[in-house]
């Protein structure tokens, strides 16, 4: 599935980032194909916020739609 379908609290594995430019920027932020992240927040019709280690990143929906992910675990019960 794609990242925009992720639900809050899910732990996710990034499987493919098709855009080379985005891939390079993602590597700098510590995200590469194969990275595990947590979906921190889904803004309705808006960006997806993910947590990688201690860092929060907001990705626009159009971008999230192009990133392939696998859900890598049960949704973690998160703070309200």
């Amino acid at each position, binding site marked *: 599935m794609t990242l925009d379908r992720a639900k809050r609290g899910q732990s996710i594995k990034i499987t493919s980032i*098709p*855009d*080379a*430019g*985005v*891939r*390079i*920027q*993602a*590597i*700098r*932020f*510590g995200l*590469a194909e194969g990275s595990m992240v947590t979906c*921190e*927040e889904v*803004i*309705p*019709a*808006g*960006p997806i*916020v993910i947590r*990688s*280690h*201690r*860092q*929060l*990143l*907001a*990705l*626009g*929906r*159009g*971008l999230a*739609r*192009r990133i392939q992910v696998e859900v890598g675990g049960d949704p973690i019960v998160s*703070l309200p």
Partner: protein
Amino acid sequence: MSHCHSPAGLKSIPEGARRIVLAGNPNTGKSVFFNHFTGIYVDVSNYPGTTLEISSGSFGNDVVIDTPGVYGISSFNDEERLARDIILNADLVINIVDAVHLERDLFLTQQIIDTGLPVVVALNMVDETARQGLEVDQILLESLLGVPVVPTVAVRKIGFAELKDRLAGARTGQATPGLDELLDGMALRPESRAEALLVLEGDPVVAKRLGADPGSRREEIYLARRGRVDSIVRQVVRESSGGALPPVLLSRWMIRPITGLPILALMLYAMYQAIGVFIAGTVVGFTEETVMQGWYEPAVRALAARLIPLESIPGIILTGEFGLLTMTATYVLGLLMPLVVGFYFFLSLFEDSGYLPRIATLVDRLLTGMGLNGRGVIPLILGFGCVTMATITTRLLASERERRIAILLLGLTIPCSAQMGVIAGMLASVGGWFVALYALVIFSVLVIIGTVLNAVLSGRSTDLLIDLPPLRLPRPDNVLKKTATKSYGFLKEAFPLFALGALMISLFQLTGVLSFLQDLLAPLTVGWLKLPAGAATAFIMGIVRRDFGAAGLSGMHLSPDQAVAALITITLFVPCIASVLVIFKERSRLEAAMIWGSSWALAFLVGGLVAQLYAAFGGTGGTAAVPPVILTFAGITLATVLACRLGRRKKTGRPEGGKANA
């Protein structure tokens, strides 16, 4: 010390002095280091990109140069290009890293180490690590990186002495495995290893400068570097249980629309109360009326009267109705200065707390409809401080298309702080419905222009990809210093322009041009905008600076509906002379001229539309006719947005956002 706009401008580096460059990710506290080394103040921003200016200062016999906060050195945007060129010319790099975010920060560290330059790492905010349940093995980090690592807490001045001691020990560190072989295998061998590395990483600018073909192995190198950084982090960072996470809840509330929009509204309301009501009313009442008009102006007139007759031409120019010594000083110091200080105070709070990138996330959806992504809100918000400065910061936007849209929106619709202050003050006296009318009309114009541009311009804008730094309580001393620096910047920029404007108006008045222009504009101002004839003077003043025009309006007796129509017109009016100059510099002449011309048309069109609609709905000064006007504007906006969406869908054959990134 010197403030320069480009690394090439860093003149006067003394013989034998070393160039010590400070480099780091955004929000690592670089500027605090810079201040400590050089003793001068620069902006400490919590948002990547509020300063594109490069500061340098002397430290002993050496020169310390600050760079914009970046995540890596390459050519992704202007900040990076600038940081890259400064780092390439460094003799020594002090790399400041955030001890809590090593996974992210060490990527830049490793890239700088890979350039072969001598490096010292300042492991900053080490006090935060314990609080967040982390332990960083600094000795191991030093041996893995191969360069000195000094723990620091910059805001509390801890570790500076050791950092200075260890500068002498700066050295070339351990490169990413496999990189040396790749560099050895290069056909072209530039003088410096740093340049060779950037060519190998496919940096088009550096490659072109050296006449080489950019390499195609960037991703391979980046992945190897990322692998090395992750492995270092695994070895040096230990997570102990416990430790509090940063304020997660508040951060969430700020970005979720259901709570985020009320929070944003609350912040704006607090600003309006503080600036529009308290400062514009109470404070300005004292500074403008009591101090400037009560004491200062009579004193200046009395003094001038001893030297020249006040009724002579120089007397009128200096101390008349639009006098250089009287009106200019009163407007700038008595009226605008307190408002500008208030605005910059709030802006500094937003910047330093980490709230700005959260606003960007919150409004991303809205801005994608206008061809910008959430990042675009930063120049727009900065525009409420100073449109001139904000126009320069549009360089942080990723594409030419986004820059064009942002600059046009800034030039046409965003009022700067000085003008905002006057407007907020005038609005505070006309009552709630009229405030709503003003806000809604300006917002509608912003949305309509953005949406239409997004539909008309070819291509597609880039998507949001932004780092949300931890929320921090702003440090009062930093907020105050920043407010002071920016307010001083305003004085420096505004005074000459105001003086020019006042001189122009006085000359117009003396030569009779003023009444001629007033008559000329009368069909527009009196007939179409339904304002008194004198309002034309305010618009003529507004050509120099819109706040100057707004200040002119504040002295007139207007009914609430007249006030709103006049304020809408002056808000949408031409950008100030300084902004226009910057727009001409940043864009093509044709585009800049079009922006200037269309703001005339737009301002009078929309202002007049409001006045005419209000009258058509039977308004005579009361609020009864306001809701229908608001509804009409909301309707026009909605219709435009829908039409543009349909048009766009038809053009691309699929819903917006479905196409690959340009």
